[in-house]
């Protein structure tokens, strides 16, 4: 039996050691450790610790993102095993996210998607330059709890408002919570266009998303 591995796995995830994380998870599964236990004791505490360190500014953004990447690698290996046993990963909520039409800025949105995924959300990243209709259709299809709209240009941030209007038009506005973000976007803008939340950065996006799910 693989002994004392959870601490080692915690450390590997915290350090963002991708290959080591994968090796450890694989060894645990080979040795018959319950995948749910690997998730609950080996992975989730590591991400919680990463969050605490980040809050305390002992961890910086690159370290947090690397820990998230390691977490995602671990989850990818664990998910099929969990499914085999009929115990699926606990999903906090479903998020559809993308950059609005006319804007091909990808990175900020992808970081948010990655952090949400590592935090346990099921994330549907629609990419960049996404038409309003596509957002609305996907929200309906996956019964999303949250829709995240990113815009980096002052000229495209107005599209966020259009998507919200489209949701209202389709009678879906009250079915999904809306978070907006992007460099020119502010809390005042979010309020003005009737979004439910605004996140200044990726870490806050996760916080806001968690709060939204908790209040549902």
């Amino acid at each position, binding site marked *: 039996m693989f002994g004392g591995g959870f601490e080692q796995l915690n450390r590997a995830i915290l350090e963002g050691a991708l290959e080591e994380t994968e090796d450890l998870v694989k060894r645990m599964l080979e040795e018959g450790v319950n995948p749910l236990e690997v998730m609950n004791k080996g992975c989730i505490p590591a991400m919680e610790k990463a969050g605490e360190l980040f809050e305390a500014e002992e961890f910086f953004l690159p370290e947090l993102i690397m820990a998230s990447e390691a977490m995602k690698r671990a989850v990818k290996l664990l998910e099929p095993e969990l499914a085999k046993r009929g115990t699926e990963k606990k999903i906090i909520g479903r998020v559809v996210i993308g950059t609005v039409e006319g804007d091909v800025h990808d990175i900020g949105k992808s970081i948010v998607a990655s952090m949400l995924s590592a935090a346990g959300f099921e994330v549907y990243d629609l990419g960049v330059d996404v038409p309003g209709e596509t957002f609305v259709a996907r929200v309906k299809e996956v019964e999303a709890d949250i829709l995240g709209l990113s815009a980096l240009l002052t*000229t495209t941030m107005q599209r966020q408002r259009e998507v919200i209007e489209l949701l209202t038009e389709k009678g879906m506005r009250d079915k999904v919570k809306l978070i907006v973000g992007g460099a020119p976007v502010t809390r*005042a*803008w979010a309020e003005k266009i009737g979004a439910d939340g605004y996140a200044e950065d990726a870490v806050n996006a996760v916080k806001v998303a968690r709060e939204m799910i908790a209040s549902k």
Partner: protein
Amino acid sequence: MKAVLEFLTKDEVERIHEASVRILEETGIRVYSAQVRKLLADHGASAKDLIVKIPKGLVEDAITKIRQDVTLAAPDPAYDLRLPSDDSPFVATSGYSPFVTDYETGNTRGSTTSDLAAFAIVSDYLDAVDYFWPIVFPTEVPPVLQEFEALAVSLKHTRKHIQCSCSSTRTAHWQIELASAIVGGKEELKKRPIFSATNAPIAPLTFEKEACEAMVMLASAGIPLVPMTMVLASTTAPATVAGTLAMANAEELACLVIIKCANPDAPVIYASEASVAHKITGKFNYDSPEYPLLSAGCAQLARFYNMPSMVGDVPLEVMPGDLLSLERNVLRVVLAFLTRTDLSAFLGSVDLASSASLAQLVVDAEACEHARAYLRSFDLSEDTLALDIIAKVGPGGHFLGQAHTKNHFRREIWTRGLDEFFILDRSSENSIPERAVAKVKEILSSCKSTVKFDLAETVEEVARDAREDLWQADGWSFQSEAFS
């Protein structure tokens, strides 16, 4: 004699250049425009899917076509700017914020046409402002019109050169039409480009379709282009200063190649806001100590290519409550100016340039005037070396009784205190922020429009057609002769 902040040795400049060339040749750029991919391929680049790899020879060829001397013409020729600049850079407002911070209440709201007009009027008045970036967008008009309106409104309220953003071909078309109508035709506009255009690739190494097609269209019309790299160490560039410089320079060279393929004579200005991502938020970090060093490195690279530059933007964003914090702002400007950039656009922004304030514009201009004074150049001559006077005074003597001292003192030595303001009211007992607000009110209440009536009429005539066309063509891409 003049001070220069140099960050790289000659050998390091060459190594960064070589690294950038390799990035373009081996990694390539992602270009969303089929027309621009074809333009590059026709000139020898290899294009596969969206990725275009630019051979070294094409980069070197573009470098040979750089124009060192560039004139940024102004609607009033008295305000023409000739690059390279002399002692200190030409300075502009910051730009393109969707919000405005009320200079009296401090409240932030969406910016409008009348806000932009007020900024243009105050900028026209202030000597410290050499050219004008439309600092806020008129957000009450539809997004498709905003960049065009920004130029139109600015032209109606300032006599100075305007540097616009332009992210679509249709906007480019109408900006060119507008400026042509004012200067008397497209050929005349090539000689007297009264506006230039900024345009930023999406870091890392990505060119959005409409924005890069607009760049080609503007280049073809002879409009000076100011493509600005905004790579950030650790998010859109490696977490190393050397790697970030190589990436920034690669993006600038890629822009240069695109522009020179479109028009070998097009004036191009090397522009960078390469910096470091904030360690927590990942946002642009203007306060990073690496930022002025990256700017200095980019200025050196621009000089290496004999290219005018705009690399020393230093958004101050702090309203100085006292002389000590004003001095901090002055020294930050000095550091930026020491890069010897030719242009610098930073006045008036707040909240990481997402908003702008008229009071901030005035105090930033004040800091700018002090910084310029500190950085003047000095003569080195027989007279200023003063060997005869040194011999005359000899060991143990003093220079106070010498006519040479009296004659040179006020010319050579800076005697003006920080509280001897250039712009703010010196006689007032009020705080610096209060004096800034008073100055804004004074300018806005006393300044009549300085723009000639017939020019404003011309702007309005073109704007009527432009509005109709842009509004109808929302989402429609304009086919340019530049690609034919």
